[in-house]
Protein backbone atom coordinates (compact mmCIF):
# COMPACT_ATOMS: atom_id res chain seq x y z
CA UNK A 1 0.00 0.00 0.00
CA UNK A 2 2.88 2.29 0.71
CA UNK A 3 4.07 2.08 -2.88
CA UNK A 4 0.57 2.85 -4.13
CA UNK A 5 0.17 5.84 -1.86
CA UNK A 6 3.59 7.10 -2.82
CA UNK A 7 2.70 6.73 -6.52
CA UNK A 8 5.91 4.84 -7.11
CA UNK A 9 4.54 2.91 -10.08
CA UNK A 10 2.02 5.46 -11.27
CA UNK A 11 4.04 6.39 -14.34
CA UNK A 12 4.41 2.75 -15.38
CA UNK A 13 0.71 2.07 -14.88
CA UNK A 14 -0.22 5.20 -16.83
CA UNK A 15 2.11 4.14 -19.65
CA UNK A 16 0.46 0.70 -19.75
CA UNK A 17 -3.01 2.25 -19.86
CA UNK A 18 -1.97 4.57 -22.67
CA UNK A 19 -0.44 1.70 -24.64
CA UNK A 20 -3.62 -0.37 -24.19
CA UNK A 21 -5.79 2.52 -25.27
CA UNK A 22 -3.63 3.22 -28.33
CA UNK A 23 -3.79 -0.46 -29.32
CA UNK A 24 -7.57 -0.57 -28.98
CA UNK A 25 -7.48 -2.97 -26.05
CA UNK A 26 -10.73 -2.80 -24.09
CA UNK A 27 -10.10 -5.60 -21.63
CA UNK A 28 -8.09 -8.67 -20.88
CA UNK A 29 -7.26 -11.01 -22.36
CA UNK A 30 -6.85 -9.53 -25.83
CA UNK A 31 -4.94 -11.36 -28.55
CA UNK A 32 -3.41 -9.89 -31.72
CA UNK A 33 -2.96 -12.57 -34.36
CA UNK A 34 -0.23 -12.44 -37.00
CA UNK A 35 0.51 -14.97 -39.72
CA UNK A 36 3.62 -14.79 -41.88
CA UNK A 37 4.33 -11.32 -40.56
CA UNK A 38 0.91 -10.04 -41.60
CA UNK A 39 -1.61 -8.78 -39.09
CA UNK A 40 -4.74 -10.95 -39.10
CA UNK A 41 -7.12 -9.74 -36.41
CA UNK A 42 -7.74 -8.95 -32.79
CA UNK A 43 -9.58 -11.34 -30.50
CA UNK A 44 -11.12 -10.17 -27.23
CA UNK A 45 -11.74 -12.96 -24.77
CA UNK A 46 -10.03 -16.26 -24.14
CA UNK A 47 -9.92 -18.11 -27.49
CA UNK A 48 -9.80 -21.87 -27.56
CA UNK A 49 -6.94 -23.67 -29.26
CA UNK A 50 -9.27 -24.70 -32.10
CA UNK A 51 -10.24 -21.11 -32.75
CA UNK A 52 -6.63 -19.94 -32.79
CA UNK A 53 -5.58 -22.82 -35.03
CA UNK A 54 -8.42 -22.17 -37.45
CA UNK A 55 -7.79 -18.43 -37.54
CA UNK A 56 -4.07 -18.93 -38.13
CA UNK A 57 -4.58 -21.76 -40.60
CA UNK A 58 -2.36 -24.20 -38.75
Amino acid sequence: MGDVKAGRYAAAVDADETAAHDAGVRGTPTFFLFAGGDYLTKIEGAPSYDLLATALGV
Partner: protein
Amino acid sequence: MSLASPVRLPRRRGDGRLVARTLRRVYARPAYVAVALVGAWACLTAVAVARNPELFVRLVVGGRLPLEDRLTVLAAMYPFGGLGYELGPALATVTLAGLVGVDLGLLAFAVRERGLSFGAGASGSAGLTGALLGGLGAGCAVCGTSLLAGALSLAGITGVAVALPFDGLLLTLPALVLVALSGFWLVDGLDGGPSCGRAGADA
Protein backbone atom coordinates in the same frame (compact mmCIF):
# COMPACT_ATOMS: atom_id res chain seq x y z
CA MET B 1 -62.32 2.28 -24.91
CA SER B 2 -60.01 4.90 -23.48
CA LEU B 3 -56.49 4.28 -22.38
CA ALA B 4 -56.47 3.75 -18.62
CA SER B 5 -52.69 4.10 -18.39
CA PRO B 6 -49.79 3.99 -20.83
CA VAL B 7 -48.37 0.72 -19.48
CA ARG B 8 -48.89 -1.58 -16.51
CA LEU B 9 -46.69 -4.03 -14.71
CA PRO B 10 -47.58 -7.73 -14.31
CA ARG B 11 -49.01 -7.66 -10.80
CA ARG B 12 -52.35 -9.42 -11.14
CA ARG B 13 -52.83 -13.03 -10.17
CA GLY B 14 -54.01 -13.95 -13.65
CA ASP B 15 -51.15 -12.32 -15.56
CA GLY B 16 -49.09 -15.50 -15.60
CA ARG B 17 -52.02 -17.49 -16.99
CA LEU B 18 -52.64 -14.76 -19.57
CA VAL B 19 -49.05 -14.95 -20.77
CA ALA B 20 -49.07 -18.75 -20.91
CA ARG B 21 -52.39 -18.82 -22.78
CA THR B 22 -51.22 -16.24 -25.32
CA LEU B 23 -47.88 -17.96 -25.87
CA ARG B 24 -49.65 -21.26 -26.51
CA ARG B 25 -52.01 -19.59 -28.97
CA VAL B 26 -49.28 -17.74 -30.88
CA TYR B 27 -46.68 -20.47 -30.93
CA ALA B 28 -49.11 -23.15 -32.02
CA ARG B 29 -48.39 -21.74 -35.48
CA PRO B 30 -45.03 -22.81 -36.95
CA ALA B 31 -44.56 -19.50 -38.79
CA TYR B 32 -44.29 -17.60 -35.52
CA VAL B 33 -42.01 -20.25 -34.05
CA ALA B 34 -39.78 -19.65 -37.07
CA VAL B 35 -39.88 -15.89 -36.49
CA ALA B 36 -38.92 -16.39 -32.84
CA LEU B 37 -36.05 -18.74 -33.70
CA VAL B 38 -34.67 -16.45 -36.38
CA GLY B 39 -35.05 -13.45 -34.06
CA ALA B 40 -33.25 -15.21 -31.22
CA TRP B 41 -30.45 -16.30 -33.53
CA ALA B 42 -30.10 -12.77 -34.94
CA CYS B 43 -29.95 -11.31 -31.43
CA LEU B 44 -27.37 -13.85 -30.34
CA THR B 45 -25.30 -13.16 -33.44
CA ALA B 46 -25.49 -9.41 -32.87
CA VAL B 47 -24.25 -9.82 -29.32
CA ALA B 48 -21.45 -12.16 -30.41
CA VAL B 49 -20.35 -9.81 -33.19
CA ALA B 50 -20.53 -6.78 -30.88
CA ARG B 51 -18.04 -8.47 -28.59
CA ASN B 52 -15.52 -9.09 -31.38
CA PRO B 53 -16.39 -6.95 -34.41
CA GLU B 54 -12.89 -7.02 -35.86
CA LEU B 55 -12.71 -10.82 -35.70
CA PHE B 56 -16.04 -11.02 -37.52
CA VAL B 57 -15.09 -8.51 -40.23
CA ARG B 58 -11.57 -9.77 -40.85
CA LEU B 59 -12.03 -13.53 -40.64
CA VAL B 60 -15.72 -14.37 -41.07
CA VAL B 61 -16.69 -11.77 -43.69
CA GLY B 62 -13.28 -10.92 -45.11
CA GLY B 63 -9.96 -12.70 -45.24
CA ARG B 64 -8.94 -15.83 -47.08
CA LEU B 65 -10.29 -18.62 -44.93
CA PRO B 66 -12.35 -21.35 -46.61
CA LEU B 67 -16.08 -21.33 -45.88
CA GLU B 68 -15.85 -24.17 -43.37
CA ASP B 69 -13.24 -22.29 -41.33
CA ARG B 70 -15.27 -19.08 -41.47
CA LEU B 71 -18.23 -20.95 -40.00
CA THR B 72 -15.96 -22.47 -37.35
CA VAL B 73 -14.78 -19.02 -36.31
CA LEU B 74 -18.35 -17.72 -36.29
CA ALA B 75 -19.54 -20.62 -34.15
CA ALA B 76 -16.70 -19.99 -31.72
CA MET B 77 -17.88 -16.42 -31.23
CA TYR B 78 -21.20 -17.46 -29.68
CA PRO B 79 -21.67 -18.03 -25.94
CA PHE B 80 -20.46 -21.50 -24.97
CA GLY B 81 -18.31 -21.40 -28.11
CA GLY B 82 -14.58 -20.89 -28.12
CA LEU B 83 -14.11 -17.50 -26.53
CA GLY B 84 -14.29 -18.34 -22.87
CA TYR B 85 -17.54 -16.68 -21.87
CA GLU B 86 -18.15 -16.88 -18.13
CA LEU B 87 -21.10 -19.15 -17.34
CA GLY B 88 -23.31 -16.40 -15.86
CA PRO B 89 -22.99 -13.91 -18.73
CA ALA B 90 -23.31 -16.74 -21.27
CA LEU B 91 -26.56 -17.99 -19.72
CA ALA B 92 -27.90 -14.46 -19.41
CA THR B 93 -27.05 -13.71 -23.04
CA VAL B 94 -28.72 -16.88 -24.33
CA THR B 95 -31.77 -16.19 -22.17
CA LEU B 96 -31.94 -12.64 -23.44
CA ALA B 97 -31.73 -13.79 -27.04
CA GLY B 98 -34.51 -16.29 -26.40
CA LEU B 99 -36.74 -13.63 -24.88
CA VAL B 100 -36.05 -11.28 -27.78
CA GLY B 101 -37.05 -14.07 -30.16
CA VAL B 102 -40.28 -14.68 -28.22
CA ASP B 103 -41.03 -10.95 -28.31
CA LEU B 104 -40.43 -10.76 -32.05
CA GLY B 105 -42.75 -13.73 -32.63
CA LEU B 106 -45.44 -12.01 -30.56
CA LEU B 107 -44.84 -8.79 -32.43
CA ALA B 108 -45.15 -10.56 -35.77
CA PHE B 109 -48.41 -12.13 -34.58
CA ALA B 110 -49.71 -8.76 -33.39
CA VAL B 111 -48.88 -7.06 -36.68
CA ARG B 112 -50.06 -9.84 -38.97
CA GLU B 113 -53.11 -11.13 -37.15
CA ARG B 114 -54.29 -7.99 -35.40
CA GLY B 115 -53.07 -5.36 -37.85
CA LEU B 116 -51.25 -3.34 -35.23
CA SER B 117 -49.27 -0.33 -36.35
CA PHE B 118 -46.08 0.74 -34.65
CA GLY B 119 -46.96 4.38 -34.29
CA ALA B 120 -50.32 4.22 -32.60
CA GLY B 121 -49.10 3.78 -29.08
CA ALA B 122 -50.54 0.31 -28.98
CA SER B 123 -48.81 -2.84 -27.88
CA GLY B 124 -46.73 -2.94 -31.04
CA SER B 125 -45.16 0.34 -30.11
CA ALA B 126 -44.45 -0.65 -26.54
CA GLY B 127 -43.18 -4.07 -27.53
CA LEU B 128 -41.05 -2.84 -30.39
CA THR B 129 -39.52 -0.15 -28.22
CA GLY B 130 -38.87 -2.69 -25.51
CA ALA B 131 -37.35 -5.15 -27.95
CA LEU B 132 -35.09 -2.49 -29.45
CA LEU B 133 -33.97 -1.23 -26.07
CA GLY B 134 -33.48 -4.77 -24.89
CA GLY B 135 -31.35 -5.54 -27.93
CA LEU B 136 -29.27 -2.47 -27.29
CA GLY B 137 -28.95 -3.53 -23.70
CA ALA B 138 -27.72 -6.93 -24.82
CA GLY B 139 -25.12 -5.36 -27.05
CA CYS B 140 -24.08 -3.00 -24.31
CA ALA B 141 -23.78 -5.85 -21.87
CA VAL B 142 -21.01 -7.56 -23.77
CA CYS B 143 -18.98 -4.40 -24.14
CA GLY B 144 -20.48 -2.73 -21.10
CA THR B 145 -17.25 -2.67 -19.18
CA SER B 146 -15.49 -0.73 -21.88
CA LEU B 147 -18.41 1.67 -22.28
CA LEU B 148 -18.50 2.18 -18.57
CA ALA B 149 -14.74 2.65 -18.51
CA GLY B 150 -15.10 5.32 -21.17
CA ALA B 151 -17.84 7.07 -19.24
CA LEU B 152 -15.85 6.89 -16.04
CA SER B 153 -12.72 8.16 -17.73
CA LEU B 154 -14.68 11.17 -18.94
CA ALA B 155 -15.42 11.82 -15.30
CA GLY B 156 -11.75 11.49 -14.52
CA ILE B 157 -12.12 8.06 -12.93
CA THR B 158 -10.19 5.33 -14.65
CA GLY B 159 -9.61 1.77 -13.70
CA VAL B 160 -12.82 1.52 -11.69
CA ALA B 161 -14.72 -0.49 -14.25
CA VAL B 162 -12.36 -3.44 -13.99
CA ALA B 163 -13.43 -3.80 -10.38
CA LEU B 164 -17.08 -4.23 -11.33
CA PRO B 165 -18.38 -7.74 -10.69
CA PHE B 166 -19.99 -10.29 -13.01
CA ASP B 167 -18.16 -9.37 -16.21
CA GLY B 168 -20.83 -6.98 -17.48
CA LEU B 169 -23.68 -9.17 -16.29
CA LEU B 170 -25.08 -6.25 -14.31
CA LEU B 171 -25.80 -4.57 -17.63
CA THR B 172 -27.44 -7.67 -19.07
CA LEU B 173 -29.87 -8.13 -16.21
CA PRO B 174 -31.74 -4.83 -16.79
CA ALA B 175 -31.96 -5.78 -20.46
CA LEU B 176 -33.54 -9.11 -19.44
CA VAL B 177 -36.15 -7.31 -17.33
CA LEU B 178 -36.85 -4.84 -20.12
CA VAL B 179 -37.32 -7.51 -22.77
CA ALA B 180 -39.48 -9.63 -20.46
CA LEU B 181 -41.66 -6.60 -19.74
CA SER B 182 -41.96 -5.76 -23.42
CA GLY B 183 -43.19 -9.32 -24.00
CA PHE B 184 -45.78 -8.88 -21.28
CA TRP B 185 -46.94 -5.60 -22.79
CA LEU B 186 -47.32 -7.30 -26.15
CA VAL B 187 -49.35 -10.10 -24.57
CA ASP B 188 -51.44 -7.60 -22.63
CA GLY B 189 -52.09 -5.64 -25.79
CA LEU B 190 -53.11 -8.75 -27.69
CA ASP B 191 -55.57 -9.45 -24.91
CA GLY B 192 -56.94 -5.92 -25.21
CA GLY B 193 -55.67 -5.03 -21.78
CA PRO B 194 -55.64 -1.52 -20.40
CA SER B 195 -51.90 -1.03 -20.77
CA CYS B 196 -52.03 -1.23 -24.52
CA GLY B 197 -55.42 0.09 -25.24
CA ARG B 198 -57.36 -1.17 -28.20
CA ALA B 199 -55.17 -3.94 -29.50
CA GLY B 200 -57.76 -6.61 -28.96
CA ALA B 201 -60.66 -4.40 -29.86
CA ASP B 202 -59.08 -3.38 -33.13
CA ALA B 203 -58.83 -6.95 -34.36
